């Protein structure tokens, strides 16, 4: 936390090195979040790109009130949602799943390192987006329901419901996988 404060402090004073360190520190986590929300590595890269460019534009005025990681995660979630809105998510899910599960990605491209994660991402992509977002932000990135409620502009009860419904659907899907 203190390290982040110092990095933000230096970033605000125009330090490229501070920006680089912030990026290095959180890029994998944020890419993971973006991939989980979009089920598309290429789209995820664009999301993280946009978030960091936008963050860089706040130099000199960026005001960190909480955790930098939570802030950036929220930005990624917002941006991913915007991107997803412009895509017919249902139709693209299968295509995207194929893309993420392919292993033809070279070192110059980002890559999901774990097969089980790929399966989970595939399953998450079949959930309604809001439910997927709650589950990923809460379980993978530690955001509290209150914060996610603010992000989705709904009540905390709605968030908890989305979380429960999402988990139930995942359980059903996994049940189907097992039976298959």
């Amino acid at each position: 936390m203190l390290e982040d404060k110092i990095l933000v402090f230096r970033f605000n004073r125009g330090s490229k090195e501070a920006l680089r360190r912030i990026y290095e520190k959180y890029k994998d986590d944020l890419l993971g979040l973006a991939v989980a929300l979009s089920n598309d590595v290429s789209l995820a890269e664009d999301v993280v790109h946009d978030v960091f460019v936008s963050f860089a534009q706040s130099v000199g005025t960026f005001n960190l009130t909480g955790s930098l990681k939570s802030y950036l995660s929220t930005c990624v979630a917002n941006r991913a949602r915007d991107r997803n809105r412009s895509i017919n998510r249902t139709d693209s899910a299968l295509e995207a799943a194929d893309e993420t599960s392919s292993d033809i990605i070279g070192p110059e491209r980002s890559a999901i390192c774990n097969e089980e994660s790929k399966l989970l991402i595939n399953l998450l992509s079949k959930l309604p987006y809001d439910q997927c977002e709650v589950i990923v932000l809460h379980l993978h990135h530690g955001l509290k329901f209150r914060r996610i409620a603010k992000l989705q502009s709904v009540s905390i009860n709605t968030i908890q419901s989305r979380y429960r419904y999402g988990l139930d659907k995942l359980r059903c899907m996994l049940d189907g996988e097992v039976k298959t």
Partner: protein
Amino acid sequence: VRLPENIERFIKNRKPHVAAGADIDNRILDDSFAAMAATMRAKSVVNQPNIRRIIMKNRITKLAAVAGIVIIVFFGLHHFGNSIDGTSTAFADVLNAISKAKTISYKEVCERESGSYTTENMVNESGVMRSILLHNLSTPKYSNSNDPNNVNITIWDLAKCIFLQLSPKDKRAYITHRVGEARKITLLNYVEWFSILHEKSGTFAGQDEIDGKITNKFICDRGEFTKITAWVDPATNLPVRVEQVDLPNPKRDISPLLSISMRDFGGTSNSTLGIGGGISEKQVQTMTDFVWNAELDESLFSVTPPEGYAVEENYQDVTQPDEKDLIKALSFWTEMSDGMFPDAINDLGDPNQVKPLLIKKFHKDGPPKEELDLAVQQMHKILKGLYFAQEQKVNGSWGYTGNGVELGDSAKPVCWWKAENSKSYRVIYGNLSIGDANSIPLITE
């Protein structure tokens, strides 16, 4: 796939780990750096015409503005005195020539990564300095130096403790009264600096051709953070070009620009006040086009605003910071932070932390101008406390242990330092009392 008993754990354990590719790293970082640079350039455009930056005049910020220029000039001269290769006789001549100089004019280009600017400066016999900000090299908006209105003029009268800033374009004048500074000096006979500089050493670095003329070149490495090069005309013994390169000193790299605007207090004006000092990034100041002893019109140095200008006056406390200032700064901090001391002393200069506290304290839905003024006064006080701590830190006898200490805990030291020529340590405790200790205070849990 086995159906998990605990679906939450199942999901948690499968958090995707994505390794970013080299291409995306480069693309994101390159684009981010470009965006950052563009923003900083844009801010430079916005800030320059309304320049009202108040530079704290103390030892910490002595490289700023006029003082900085004076240092450059006399540092350049100083080298001659301590040269080890037989140029010491030249020093006396240069010193003599400078002491007889009545006026000086020169051009200065200051280049930084975040932006550059050019000024034309002149100093009269009384030591009053007039500086004209011509244009910002990195901002096309100010590239038209032919427009006589597209400039900012600052007149520094240190003897009267006043500096006047004029913005001809919008006919505004800002007068700053520097309270607590009574110096009867003239810039060209500022022997105080000689007494400091005489202890330093410089190196004769041979001869260079500058604008077709042979000059003597002298280099002075003033520690690892400042390097000054002066080219001197052997015929007149006066500098024709001086270049100073400053790098951020990590120990002093904690005095950023703190700025706060009317908008922060519900106002609609863009009026912004900022305070800053020190060197936060590498900067190169190059002084050229020296003209010595030219006749200068005294009206150019008047600190009375021209007719037709809207005038705004400010008062700036420029007394040297002391331990009381540090206590006041810590007192404000604890008051606004639920009794907790800052995690680090540098937090006192962190805009991200200080600004919200100022707004919290002074934004009461009253007149924005009044609230802004109060906040700025408090901002000065906080920075004075920080500057005091910085001085102790630079002197090498400073410690801060306030992280986690709560206001009122008289047993816990918050910070300590040892003044020059003192045998004991000064200690500020958690109840903001101050006392002496024979040794560095122990931190007890």
